[in-house]
């Protein structure tokens, strides 16, 4: 069984006032293990929606998302944890639902997130930086085959970003990654290929530079 994720003719509509809006239109995408793909698109082009569909957090309106490897939930600034629970409770929740033993993970998350006492406080009391650190630490706890990264790496101070870099691209360099980011340097550095979302359609590029060219050319349109 080949490990991959395949999107076949996936479309997603959202109801809006007076009808429906087509966010994604017949998307086809295949991700193989250890591939790193960048997703480019303007704000509102459907990048986050695409990530949610790949993760299974939402279902497509039509089309099939065929997951044959273990995919993370969308790693973003928040989401995936519950505000009234503490950092530790959230860790326990994640370990339970992903069926992962918690044994060594507590000290890891404490260490990485650097929350101090706040590890035992409700997440809703955290600053946005603390949330991002916890979100990232929690997602590193489960051994996913594919990580979905929605702009989270842009956040945080240099130290945090350096640690994220190490956890993702050094310790887990054999995993697949789908990266949404506006930072061209980041994508160029880490991705093998890019896809550009434009008006609901996906344009594939084997060369990251070609992808960025296309993106820049069409950035005025929507």
């Amino acid at each position: 069984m080949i490990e991959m994720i395949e999107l076949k003719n996936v479309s997603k509509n959202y109801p809006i006032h007076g009808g429906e809006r087509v966010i994604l239109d017949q998307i086809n995408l295949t991700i193989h293990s250890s591939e790193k793909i960048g997703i480019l698109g303007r704000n509102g082009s459907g990048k986050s929606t695409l990530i949610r569909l790949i993760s299974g957090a939402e279902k497509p309106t039509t089309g099939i998302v065929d997951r044959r490897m273990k995919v993370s939930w969308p790693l973003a600034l928040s989401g995936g944890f519950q505000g009234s629970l503490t950092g530790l409770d959230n860790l326990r929740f994640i370990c339970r639902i992903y069926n992962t033993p918690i044994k060594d993970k507590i000290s890891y998350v404490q260490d990485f997130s650097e929350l101090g006492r706040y590890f035992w406080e409700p997440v809703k009391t955290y600053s946005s930086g603390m949330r991002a650190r916890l979100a990232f630490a929690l997602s590193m706890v489960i051994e996913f085959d594919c990580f979905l990264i929605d702009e989270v790496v842009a956040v945080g101070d240099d130290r945090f970003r350096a640690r994220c870099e190490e956890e993702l691209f050094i310790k887990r360099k054999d995993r697949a990654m789908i990266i949404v980011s506006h930072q061209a340097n980041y994508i160029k550095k880490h991705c093998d290929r890019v896809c550009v979302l434009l008006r609901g359609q996906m344009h594939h590029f084997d060369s990251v530079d070609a992808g960025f060219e296309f993106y820049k050319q069409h950035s005025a349109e929507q």
Partner: protein
Amino acid sequence: MASLNSFLESLMIQKRVIGALILREVLTRYGRHNIGFLWMIIEPMMFTGGVTLIYSLRPMSHGGLTGAQMVLTGYSAILLWRNIPNRCLGALEPNLSLFFHRMVKPLDVFLSRIILESIGAGISMIVLSLIYLSLGVVNFPVDILKVIEAWFLLAWYATALSLFVGAIASQTEIMDRVFHIIQYLMVGFSGSLFLVAWVPPPLQHIVLFVPTVHCNEMMRSGFFGSVEKFYYDVGYVVAFNMVLTLLGLAQVRYISKKVRPE
């Protein structure tokens, strides 16, 4: 065989998810200091104590049941069909962020609250019964299996109702208000506070449209024996519950496609 394995696997996953959700509910509902749990016993005691007082002030009681006996059984029913649906109204909103994890589904959130609240209602009922038993206000049930059966039929009804209204309420605000109004009215008509025997015979079949009336009658019959004539039809309740369960599950399935994690 493959489909049985994947079914069992899915069941295990769902069991883990619901278990995790129940623990999450316990932490936020009762806090870490378990004081909130005491309220689950105290509130029923206050209600039943208050109504018992009112009943005892009446010059004579209707038929063979005392006020305390009426309200002990009646209130256990209210605990089920009032508390459980109330916990499912607005159940999805505080948990929206958890739907980012693909194995967490709206049905799981509803079921975790239903299970937790049912256990609470059950414990309340048992504790209250033991207290009343020790005070000599009630005797040990004549037919305890019948009491338990009636309680489970009520719990089933409450579960199906909760799925139905909880799902609808997650999409429209009106359901919340409408349902609370209906609940207030139902306290009088649900059978908790009257016996079918008190209703004029030509009108009895009307109250017997309400399934909780049957369950109350059955529970009292099991508890107190034939001190009164009790009217109930288990088949009717089962049929009603099955239809309501179907409607509830269908509604949950329908809204599951519309729920967006946040």
